[in-house]
């Protein structure tokens, strides 16, 4: 007991002194606090070094393939054949050439498709939740959305495989269409469309939660002023609240995109597991063609790690994923930074 009191005193006194003189600045910290501070500092430094170490590791492993393939890694296809070839020749120099265009296209298409879904339907949900929802319904709805955001992706994959894929193959793909396309790609329901639907279900809740938070934190006085001037509620939402919450909404979309890009298991289950580049010339059939994303390629082909060329190719996919995640997180920093400085303060 006595010791505790002593410690308290020793903390308080210098503070008083500093506040009166204003000159003796910092109070001396107790030894224990210093130690803890140093440990925390070390841990912070260590974890940031770890991130750089991961990047260095992934990229260094990817270099053999990236170097041998050059730009054709991004601009040419034939991944599955390349991979089989690399596996069978067990990594001769010729086997280091990979073309990941279908995979990159698959990633971009599924993610952007899901984002379009999110920005339309998700934004509607967010507006409803934060502006129009009756008070008694808001709590349960909000907690449901948050719960949905926390469901592991493999569950969404299963739902996609059991419900979405059979639905597409039954109702959207006719036997004639499938016959006509069989030489180009197998249409069996596992498709770009299934991927987009499953991804939207997955990232939708994240986006809705973030966007409704952003809308709620739009300055109240804007809304009040707008309503006082006689604008309708709808007009206020569209013209005043949404622009004020724009940065937060965009930041939410970017976070959702980050999760979509990295999603592997769920997409590997529903998008068709073949490195196929959908052809826009096929019209709407484009959406029914199978694709495979960078992340699900890593999962599907992980077995090949024992051959150096295959390993390097998978790390090349990984380095692209890493790069896009870094870019996205930079974007989201810019936008969330603007959110804090732009407009007026919350109060």
């Amino acid at each position, binding site marked *: 007991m006595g010791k505790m009191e002593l410690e308290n005193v020793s903390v308080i006194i210098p503070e008083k002194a500093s506040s009166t003189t204003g000159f003796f600045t910092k109070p001396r910290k107790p030894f224990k606090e210093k130690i803890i501070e140093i440990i925390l500092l070390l841990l912070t430094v260590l974890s940031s070094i770890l991130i750089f170490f991961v990047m260095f590791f992934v990229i260094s492993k990817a270099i053999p393939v990236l170097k041998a393939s050059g730009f054709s890694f991004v601009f040419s296809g034939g991944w599955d054949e390349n991979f*089989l070839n690399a596996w069978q020749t067990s990594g001769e120099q010729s086997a280091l050439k990979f073309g990941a265009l279908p995979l990159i296209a698959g990633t971009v298409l599924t993610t952007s498709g899901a984002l379009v879904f999110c920005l339309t339907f998700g934004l509607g949900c967010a507006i409803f939740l934060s502006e129009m929802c009756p008070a008694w319904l808001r709590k349960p709805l909000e907690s449901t959305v948050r719960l949905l955001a926390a469901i592991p992706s493999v569950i969404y994959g299963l739902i996609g495989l059991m419900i979405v894929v059979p639905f597409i193959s039954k109702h959207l793909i006719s036997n004639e269409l499938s016959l006509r*396309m069989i030489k180009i790609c197998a249409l069996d329901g596992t498709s770009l469309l299934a991927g987009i639907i499953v991804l939207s279900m997955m990232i939708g809740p994240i986006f809705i939660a973030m966007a409704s938070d952003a809308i709620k934190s739009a300055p109240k006085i804007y809304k009040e002023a707008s309503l006082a001037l006689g604008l309708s509620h709808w007009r206020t939402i569209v013209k005043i609240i949404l622009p004020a919450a724009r940065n937060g909404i965009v930041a939410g979309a970017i976070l959702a995109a980050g999760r979509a890009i990295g999603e592997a298991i769920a997409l590997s289950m529903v998008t068709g597991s073949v490195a196929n580049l959908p052809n826009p010339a096929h019209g709407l059939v484009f959406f029914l063609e199978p694709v495979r994303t960078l992340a699900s390629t890593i999962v*599907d082909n992980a077995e090949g790690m024992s051959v150096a060329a295959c390993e390097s190719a998978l790390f090349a996919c990984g380095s692209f994923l890493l790069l896009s995640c870094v870019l996205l997180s930079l974007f989201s920093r810019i936008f969330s930074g603007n959110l804090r400085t732009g407009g007026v303060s919350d109060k």
Partner: protein
Amino acid sequence: MKKSLLIVSLVAVLTLLCVQLAFAAGTISVQVNGKALSMDSKPFIKQGKVLVPMRAIFETLGASVKWDDKTQKVTAKKGSTEIALWIGKKEAKVGSKNVILDVAAAVDKGRTFVPLRFVAESLGAKVDWVSSKNLVVVTTGGGGAAAAELSGSLKMSGSTSVQPLAEELTQVFMKENPKVQITVTGGGSGVGIKDAADGKVNIGNVSRNLKDSDPKGLVATTIAKDAIVIVVNPKNPVDKLTTDQVKKIFTGAITNWKDIGGKNAPIIVNSRTAPSGTFDFFKEKFLGEDNVVATAKQHASNGLVRQAVAGNENAIGFISMGFMDSSVKAPTLDGVKPTLENAKNGTYKVVRPFIMVTKGAPTGLAKSFLDFVLSSEGQSIVKKEYISIQ
């Protein structure tokens, strides 16, 4: 009050103890390698010799038993050692050598009893009698180390084809050796080889033969053989295929079921990713130098192929026979039904080895486990759904 309670409980404990002791004195127990031998009927002593139920002791010692009703003859075989006994006869045989027993094998209440010491020692075990406990201690194995109870943990990874069998084997092994913990994970043959070579696992499961391109220093133990089955959806009317048709389907030369006697519908080809052992064998057996068609779906496991074929009427794929169930249908191949019997008797020829690889020759617990897998007990588990190597 307290005192009386103490006395009562003391008396109770003592009585219980006495009962236990009396019970123990009446029965003979047998321990094999430190574990009590479980028997369906009690062993007894006849002319100073302990007789035990035949099945319990032979199976625990890893010997297979045969009973010939006509001659009343019991034959047990373990490795190269074979012993023969006759009910009621004092003559016995160890290999080709004749032995005279003190007590003959006997039948009691429908159970055959054999003299424990003779049987165990003929099969290479050591037998000790602990008279104070009425306990027979049997220890197998040459050295003292092998006699100790097995403990520790093993890790296995690799082929998804081998995985179900490996899991079944490890479960039995762990039941017999409760202090042993074995984990089996999948990943594919490629993963099994890499993990074993890197020392990440003790045993790698592989469903193909080792190749020159695999890491050096791996030792393969063939544990079973497995057939690969071409499967289609149960709703598909096609129920016979030829090797040539399979090749044409998987290389994309035939794309319509109509061409091989089915409906006018596209053929959805399901294949495995390149590093799969099942794919490797399938390609060697059916495709040769040709590659699988580019539109083929690439799955990472047997289960996923089966799921894909079960879920699409027009799909075709290939899986390990161990994965066959009613959700998919196996057409005949060149007129041969792909069944376990046909694979065993050699009429169904699409059969590949299951191997377990270790870094260097297997040692310690890995060796004990592989010995178990190769024993008649282990192979009897193999036989249920796969082809035994015996």
